[in-house]
C-alpha cells in the first residue's frame, strides 16, 4: 500500500450509541489496520449515474483517490496512468464488457492481473458469478448497490492486497539479505583460495605476482574467446591455483638453480597430480575448474605434454588458456634456472607454438590481447 503522504492519524468512526445507532446517511465502517483510504480505486461503469454514485460512496467512505470512467476502452490506459490498487468493473457494457476488460488486462505482462477486481452485476445467478470469477474477478457486488456492502468488499480486498504487497516486500528484503550473505561467502571462499595459491607459490614466487598475473592474463584470454562472463570470472579466479601441487615438491628440486635431472624432472611433473588431488572431490564449480587446470595445464595441444599426453579438445579449455598464460609469464620473468627472455622473443615464441604447444584459438586470442600482455609482462 502506498504510504500516507499526509501522515494524518487514522480516523476512528464514532462508536454506535445503543443497540440501534442513528443512521446518519453516511456509511461508516470500522477503521482498518492500514492506510486503506490512500488506496487508488478505479471505477468502470458505462452508466454515468452509477459511476457517479460509486464515486460519491467511496469519497464519503474516506477514499481519497478515486477515478471513474464510463468508457471500458479507456481502462488499459488508466490502468497504466492511474495505477489502481483495486478496480470496480461493471459486467454489462456495450462495446467491451467486463469480461473483455479483464481479458485485456490479463493479456498484459505475466498474464495475471494482481490488482483485485470487483465485478458489478445485476445478474445474481450462480452461473454469472462463477463466470465473473473464472474471468479473473476476486469478488462481486450485486446491483442495486448496497453502500455498506460496497465499502466492505473494497476494504477486505484492499486488506488482502496490502498484505500481499507487504509480504512481497519482505520476501524481496529477505532475498537481498540472502544474496548479500552468499556474496560474502563467495568472497571469503575466494580469499581462502587466493591465499592457498599464495602458499603454494610462496617458495619460488614470494610475492605471489606470478599467480596473480597468470590469473589476470587467463581472464583476458577467456574474455577474448568470448566465453560467458561467469566462466571468464571463474577462470580468472581458478587459474592462480594451477601450480598448487608444487607444495608437495621438495626445495632441492623446486629451487634448484639449474637444469633438473630426468629423475628430478619426473618428480617435478607430479605437481599436476598433487594439485589435482588437493582440489579433487569438491562440489564447488570453481574448485572443480581449478582441479582441471592444475591437472591439465602442462598438457600440449599436439599431445606431447604431461601427465597424460592429451591432445586438442581432450584438454579442458580452461587448461589450454592457462597453459598460454603460464608459459608467457614464466618466459617473460626470471626463474631460478634462467633469466627472463626479451618480451619480443617471448611473443614470437608463443606464436611459433600455435598448434604445437598451444591451442591456435587461444593464441589468436593472445594476439588480440598482446598490448595488455606486454603491460602485464612489464609488471614486477
Amino acid at each position, binding site marked *: 500500500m502506498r504510504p500516507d503522504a499526509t501522515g494524518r492519524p487514522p480516523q476512528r*468512526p464514532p*462508536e*454506535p450509541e445503543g*443497540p*440501534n*445507532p442513528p*443512521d446518519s446517511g453516511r*456509511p*461508516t*465502517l*470500522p477503521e482498518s*489496520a492500514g492506510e486503506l483510504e490512500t488506496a487508488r480505486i478505479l471505477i468502470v461503469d458505462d452508466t454515468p449515474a452509477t459511476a457517479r454514485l460509486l464515486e460519491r460512496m467511496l469519497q464519503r467512505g474516506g477514499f481519497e483517490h478515486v477515478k471513474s470512467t464510463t468508457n471500458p476502452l479507456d481502462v488499459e490506459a488508466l490502468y497504466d496512468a492511474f495505477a489502481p490498487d483495486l478496480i470496480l468493473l461493471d459486467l454489462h457494457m456495450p462495446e467491451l464488457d467486463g469480461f473483455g476488460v479483464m481479458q485485456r488486462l490479463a493479456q498484459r505482462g505475466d498474464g495475471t492481473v494482481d490488482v483485485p477486481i470487483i465485478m458489478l452485476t445485476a445478474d445474481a445467478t*450462480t452461473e454469472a*458469478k*462463477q463466470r465473473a*470469477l473464472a474471468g479473473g474477478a*476476486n*469478488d462481486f457486488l450485486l446491483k442495486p448497490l*448496497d*453502500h*455498506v*456492502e460496497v465499502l*466492505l*468488499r473494497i476494504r*477486505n*480486498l484492499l*486488506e*488482502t492486497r496490502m*498484505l*500481499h504487497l*507487504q*509480504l*512481497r516486500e*519482505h*520476501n524481496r528484503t*529477505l532475498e537481498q539479505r540472502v544474496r548479500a550473505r552468499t556474496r560474502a561467502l563467495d568472497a571469503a571462499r575466494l580469499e581462502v583460495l587466493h591465499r592457498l595459491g599464495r602458499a603454494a607459490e610462496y617458495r619460488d614466487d614470494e610475492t605471489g605476482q606470478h599467480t596473480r598475473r597468470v590469473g589476470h592474463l587467463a581472464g583476458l584470454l577467456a574474455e577474448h574467446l568470448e566465453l560467458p562472463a561467469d566462466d571468464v570470472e571463474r577462470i580468472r579466479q581458478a587459474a592462480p591455483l594451477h601450480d598448487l601441487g608444487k607444495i608437495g615438491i621438495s626445495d632441492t628440486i623446486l629451487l634448484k638453480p639449474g637444469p633438473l635431472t630426468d629423475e628430478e624432472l619426473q618428480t617435478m611433473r607430479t605437481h599436476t597430480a598433487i594439485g589435482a588431488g588437493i582440489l579433487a572431490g569438491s562440489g564447488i564449480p570453481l574448485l572443480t575448474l581449478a582441479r582441471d587446470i592444475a591437472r591439465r595445464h602442462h598438457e600440449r595441444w599436439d599431445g606431447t605434454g604431461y601427465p597424460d599426453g592429451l591432445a586438442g579438445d581432450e584438454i579442458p579449455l580452461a587448461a589450454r588458456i592457462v597453459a598460454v598464460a603460464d608459459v608467457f609469464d614464466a618466459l617473460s620473468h626470471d626463474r631460478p634456472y634462467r633469466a627472463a627472455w626479451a618480451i619480443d622473443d617471448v611473443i614470437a615464441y608463443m606464436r611459433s607454438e600455435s598448434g604445437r604447444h598451444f591451442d591456435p584459438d587461444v593464441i589468436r586470442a593472445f594476439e588480440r590481447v598482446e598490448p595488455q600482455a606486454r603491460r602485464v609482462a612489464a609488471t614486477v
Partner: protein
Amino acid sequence: MISEETIKRGTVLLVDDEAASVRMLSRMLDRAGYGNVHGTTEPARVPEVFREVRPDLIILDLHMPGMDGFEVMEQLEADIPEDVYLPILVLTADPAPEVKRRALLAGAKDFLTKPIDNFEFMLRLWNLLEARFLYLRLAQHLDS
C-alpha cells in the same frame, strides 16, 4: 501466494444455535474440501472452544437466543488482539444495512445472508482465509 491446499487446511469454527444449520454448513465445507471444521451450538462456550481449536476463521450466526452474535464478538475481544487478523464472517437473515453496519462495527469482516448461497459462502470463506494466511505469513516474517 497462498495455495488452495493451505487455505483448505484452515481451521474454521462454526457458531450457530441451530444444530441443523451447523450440520448443513459443516457438510458444505466438507464437500468443498475443508478438513478442519469445528462447530458449536452454545454461544456461551465460544471463548472456551476458541482457545481449544485456535480457528483461522469464525462463522457466527448473529441471531441466537440467550447470547447473540454481537455478545459473542464482545466476549472474543479479549482473545483476539487488535493487531491480529482473525476474520469473523457473520450469518444473518436480516439484510438491513443497519444490522450489517452494527456487525461490522462489532468486529465482523463480512457477512452472509440466510438462506446461504453456496457459491457466495465459498467465495467469502476463500477470500477471508487467504487474507488470514497472508497475515500469518507476514507475522512469521516479522518475527524471524
